[in-house]
């Protein structure tokens, strides 16, 4: 088990190395020239060449990548072309906001998923079951930015229950978290539903019922823990989906997280920040998968032996 996990960690490190290389090459071969952008519109060829030299962009490509990699190992993501400060510092300053958004989003998603999933499993083909199927389909088919604008329109502009945008109080987080969580909730509910149906058909659940336990207790104490495993795995895998969603949601709600940082950097062709955010997002995705692997044996003792 331990060696299997060590193997996973090595794999994860290799994947991150690959992500760094691919991002580096992609940004290097894109037609946008950061040196020309920094030097400004009135700059002549000599000035652009100077900027290029300052940034180390005139070095041979492998050397540039090597400098980037060795910086990464020291936790140095380079300096922003535009803002002139350390990329790592900029990103770290933005992480709490994004973390708050993601955690509340996941909370909304899992809470709704569990409630609807259990209801659907217990009363198959009933109202909750149909609602779950519909919600799941509408959820995956909804453009996130439209849902964001819809929530803003109804709950902020018309009803005035929540602020239009910004960050700081719990009221600010409600609409962004709902936008992130609502759409995925249907899919979680479907997963919970099918996992619960599997578990509810098992003998030990019938035994628990037969010895006189209430349905409530059977479902919450006996069936649910066994149905949780796929949910945990799904959260881990979903981190990637969330990292993308964060860009859109932060753009609409003016939420000062790394999505917004990335979005501004993309518009300014601030390559070090774009690379930094891509790497940090990939790190989050890889860690999410690792975490799902690590938590599984804790939740399910049957996996521990393998």
């Amino acid at each position: 088990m331990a060696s299997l996990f060590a193997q996973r960690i090595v794999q994860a490190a290799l994947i991150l190395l690959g992500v760094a290389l691919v991002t580096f090459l992609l940004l290097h071969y894109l037609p946008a020239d950061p040196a020309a952008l920094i030097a400004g519109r009135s700059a002549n060829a000599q000035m652009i060449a100077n900027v290029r030299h300052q940034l180390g962009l005139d070095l041979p490509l492998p050397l540039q990548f090597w400098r980037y990699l060795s910086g990464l190992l020291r936790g140095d993501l380079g300096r922003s072309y535009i803002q002139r400060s350390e990329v790592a510092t900029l990103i770290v300053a933005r992480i709490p906001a994004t973390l708050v958004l993601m955690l509340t989003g996941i909370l909304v998603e899992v809470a709704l998923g569990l409630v609807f999933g259990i209801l659907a499993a217990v009363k198959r083909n009933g109202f909750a079951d149909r609602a779950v199927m519909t919600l799941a389909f509408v959820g995956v088919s909804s453009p996130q930015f439209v849902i964001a604008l819809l929530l803003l329109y109804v709950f902020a502009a018309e009803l005035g229950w929540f602020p239009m945008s910004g960050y700081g109080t719990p009221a600010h987080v409600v609409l962004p978290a709902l936008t992130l969580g609502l759409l995925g909730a249907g899919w979680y509910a479907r997963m919970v539903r099918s996992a619960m149906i599997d578990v509810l058909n098992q003998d030990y659940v019938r035994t628990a019922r037969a010895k006189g336990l209430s349905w409530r207790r059977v479902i919450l104490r006996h069936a649910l823990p066994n149905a949780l495993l796929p949910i945990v795995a799904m959260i881990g895998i979903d981190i990637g989906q969330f990292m993308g969603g964060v860009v859109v949601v932060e753009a609409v709600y003016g939420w000062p997280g790394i999505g917004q940082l990335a979005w501004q950097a993309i518009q300014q062709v601030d390559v070090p920040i774009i690379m930094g955010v891509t790497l940090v997002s990939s790190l989050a995705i890889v860690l999410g998968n690792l975490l799902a692997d690590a938590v599984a044996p804790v939740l399910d003792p049957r996996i521990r032996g393998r």
Partner: protein
Amino acid sequence: MRRVFAEMTRRPSTLLALLLILVVVLSALGAPWLAPFAPDDQPFDGLSLEGAPLAPGAKYWLGTDTLGRDLLSRLLFGARTSLVIGLVANGVAVVIGMLVGTVAGYSGGMFGGALMRFTDLMMAFPALLLAIVLAALLHPSLWIVAMVIALVNWVQVARVVYTETRGLAERDFILAERSLGAGHGRILFRHIAPHLMPTAIVYGTLGIATTVLLEATLSFLGVGVQPPQPSWGNIIFESQSYFQAAPWLVFIPGAVILATALSFNLVGDTLRDLLDPTQRGRG
């Protein structure tokens, strides 16, 4: 195939979805004849006296946008953009995914392993972020957007096809064919490919929904299809700052995107049900 189609029309929700898709296709094909105005026409009475967009009414059925252009006409022409990108980008993604998946699954060994490690690598990228970065820095246009979407969307198809090909390659009828002296090309195209057709059809449909949504998102962020060429996403992009005063400009196109994506998802899911009984009832 006829049996599948008959079965599909028997399910009310799938039938409705098929009809909606038909409407979108007809709108895209017939836009020049159906649209009451040209998509970039700015009629003299397209804005109110105060210069605000007009709400839905008798002359402009769905209202006008912030430049006084007819929303219905822009939506009809936008259907062209969305469908072209949906079909092209998703088609390319499915073809790349099928190729990588079958080659990796059939050849196995070092080469197949290396190909699949590369798809693992692609899975570790946040797809939407990657698409935004590429589209923004490549000077977005319709075809660039389509290629960017294909580039981030083939991975899932490749993984599914890989697993299926691995399973097929070990079956007895493939072994039999090999013993009869069939070459790899013959086995791949005559014996493995037909078994992968259901997967191709299912992803060819489901993927259109994903693609339409991705194009809308990119255009909404301003890095997709560029105005004045209308796309459902950039209609919302152009009017989002007016969404309190003119909500129809955001929510009508939004509903159109949702309905289209939902229809393709429903039809794709039904196809999966019908073509592959082992997947029935799964997510």
